[in-house]
C-alpha cells in the first residue's frame, strides 16, 4: 500500500566539528507533502542537507524540530519503507539473494518477484555471489532490487544512479519507472541532476543551500513516454535554470 507523506522540518542543526556547543543550522522551515503514489524529485546544490532530509523521513535521525506524518496518521512502523542509500550498503558477508531476502519482511518475501527483478536488473547470474565480487553498477542494481522486492509503500532514493555510466543509468531509470508504474509506490528521489529530475518526476522540489529551505516547486505534467531528450532540455531551460541562479544566489 503506497502512503502519502507530510514532512515538516522547522529546524535541524548539526554540532559543528571542532567547536564546542556551536550548532550549524542545516534545514530551516521546510515543509512539503507527497501524495500517495506520487513521484517527487528533490533537487538542490550538493551539501544542502538532502541526505539529512531523507534520514529524517526514514526515522534514522530523530534529532530535529518538526514532524513527519504518513497518510491516515499511520505510525512509521506500519508503512513499508524502502531506502536506496547513496552507497549500496549490501552486507558483504551475505550473498546478493540473502541481502534481498533479509530486507523483506519474512511473510511477504516473494521469490518469483525477486527472480523477475534480478532478471530485469541483469543480476540473474549473480544471485549467489558475494557483493565484493560485483562491480559498482551491479551493487547499485542489487540495492535497487532489495528496495523494490519488499514492495515499499514509500520509497526513498538518495542519488541512486550517481557514478554509473550513462547507458546503465538510463536502463536503471527505465527499470525504476516500470516498477513504479506497476506498484504506484510513493517516491521521494534526491538528485542534483536536473535532467534526471525532469525525466522522472511528477513534481520537482528545488531546495536552496544552507540553511536549506524550499525554494520553488515545479510540476511536470507531460506523460513520461512523451518526455524525450529535446523536450527535457527545453523544459529545463524554461522552468528550472532561472531558479537555479536564484538557488545559487540564496
Amino acid at each position, binding site marked *: 500500500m503506497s502512503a502519502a507523506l507530510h514532512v515538516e522540518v522547522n529546524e535541524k542543526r548539526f554540532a559543528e566539528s571542532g567547536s564546542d556547543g556551536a550548532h550549524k543550522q542545516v534545514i530551516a522551515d521546510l515543509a512539503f507533502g507527497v501524495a500517495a503514489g506520487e513521484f517527487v524529485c528533490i533537487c538542490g546544490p550538493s551539501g544542502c542537507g538532502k541526505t539529512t532530509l531523507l534520514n529524517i523521513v526514514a*526515522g534514522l535521525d530523530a534529532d530535529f524540530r518538526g514532524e513527519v506524518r504518513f497518510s491516515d496518521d499511520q505510525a512509521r512502523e506500519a508503512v513499508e519503507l524502502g531506502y536506496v*542509500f547513496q552507497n549500496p*550498503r549490501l552486507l*558483504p*558477508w*551475505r550473498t546478493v539473494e540473502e541481502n534481498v531476502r*533479509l530486507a523483506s519482511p519474512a511473510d511477504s518475501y516473494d521469490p518469483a518477484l525477486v527472480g523477475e527483478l534480478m532478471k530485469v536488473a541483469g543480476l540473474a547470474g549473480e544471485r549467489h555471489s558475494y557483493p565484493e565480487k560485483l562491480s559498482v553498477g551491479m551493487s547499485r542494481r542489487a540495492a535497487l532490487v532489495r528496495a523494490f522486492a519488499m514492495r515499499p509503500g514509500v520509497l526513498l532514493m538518495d542519488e541512486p544512479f550517481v557514478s554509473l555510466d550513462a547507458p546503465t543509468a538510463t536502463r536503471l531509470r527505465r527499470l525504476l519507472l516500470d516498477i513504479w508504474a506497476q506498484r504506484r509506490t510513493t517516491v521521494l528521489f534526491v538528485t542534483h541532476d536536473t535532467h534526471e529530475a525532469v525525466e522522472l518526476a511528477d513534481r520537482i522540489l528545488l531546495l536552496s543551500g544552507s540553511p536549506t529551505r524550499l525554494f520553488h516547486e515545479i510540476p511536470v505534467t507531460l506523460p513520461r513516454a512523451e518526455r524525450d531528450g529535446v523536450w527535457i532540455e527545453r523544459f529545463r531551460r524554461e522552468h528550472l535554470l532561472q531558479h537555479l541562479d536564484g538557488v545559487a544566489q540564496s
Partner: protein
Amino acid sequence: MKLLRQPTLWSMLLFLLFWQLGTLALGAMRLPGPVMVMRTLVDATASGELLYHLGITLARVGAAFVLAMLLGSAIGILLGRRKRVDRFFNSWLITLLNIPALVIIILSYVWFGLVEAAAIAAVVVNKVPNVAVIMREGARAMNRDYTELAQVYRFGYWKTLRHVTLPQLYPYLMASARTGLSLIWKIVLVVELLGRSNGMGFQLHLFFQLFDVASILAYTLAFVLVIQAIELAVLRPLDSAARRWRR
C-alpha cells in the same frame, strides 16, 4: 616425491637434528633425546596417566575459555558501544590487564581456598581483560551504515545480531580466541602447580622434583600436539568459513 618438497618436513627434521646435537652436548640426563622422549610419551600414554592429567587440564582450559570469552565479549562490546561507560572503566581495565597472573592466582586461592572454582576463576579473571580490549576495538569499528540499514529495513534484535553485528565482530572474536587459547593453557598450568593435585601443572611440578626431564618433555609434546590439533580441526575451518565472502 611430493613429500620431499614439503618445507615443513625439512624444518621438522632440522629441529630434531638440533635437539639430538643438544643432547650430545648437555648429556641425556639434562636433555633427553627425541627417541627417549618418544618412548616416555608412549609409556605414559599406555599407562593412562598422561591421558588422565591431560584430560583434567583440557577440561579446565575449556571451562575457563568459554567463561572468559563470554564475559570478556559482553564487557568489551558494552565498552565499545557506550563512550561514557568506557571512559569510566578504562582505568580499571588497564589495571586488571597489568596485574601479574601470579598475583591473581595467589589471591584467588587465599580468598576462596584451594578449590576447583578458585582455580577456574583465577584463569578467567586473567583472560577477561584481554578479550574485553580486543572486543572493544571490534565494537568501535562497527560500521554505522549497516546499523542504519538494519534499522530502516526493520531487522529487529536477533536478525541484526546474526546478520549485521556478529559478522562484523567475527575477526575480533577469532583473534581473541586464538590468543585466548594460548594464554589460558599457560595460566592453567601455573594454577595447577600452585593449588591442585592433578592436571599437567601438578605432574610437571612432580617431575621437576624427581628431575625427570624426559617426562617433562613428553607431557609438553603431548600438549603442543593437542593445541595444534585444535588449531587445525577447529580454528582454521572456522576462519576459512568466515572468509568465504572476501575477494
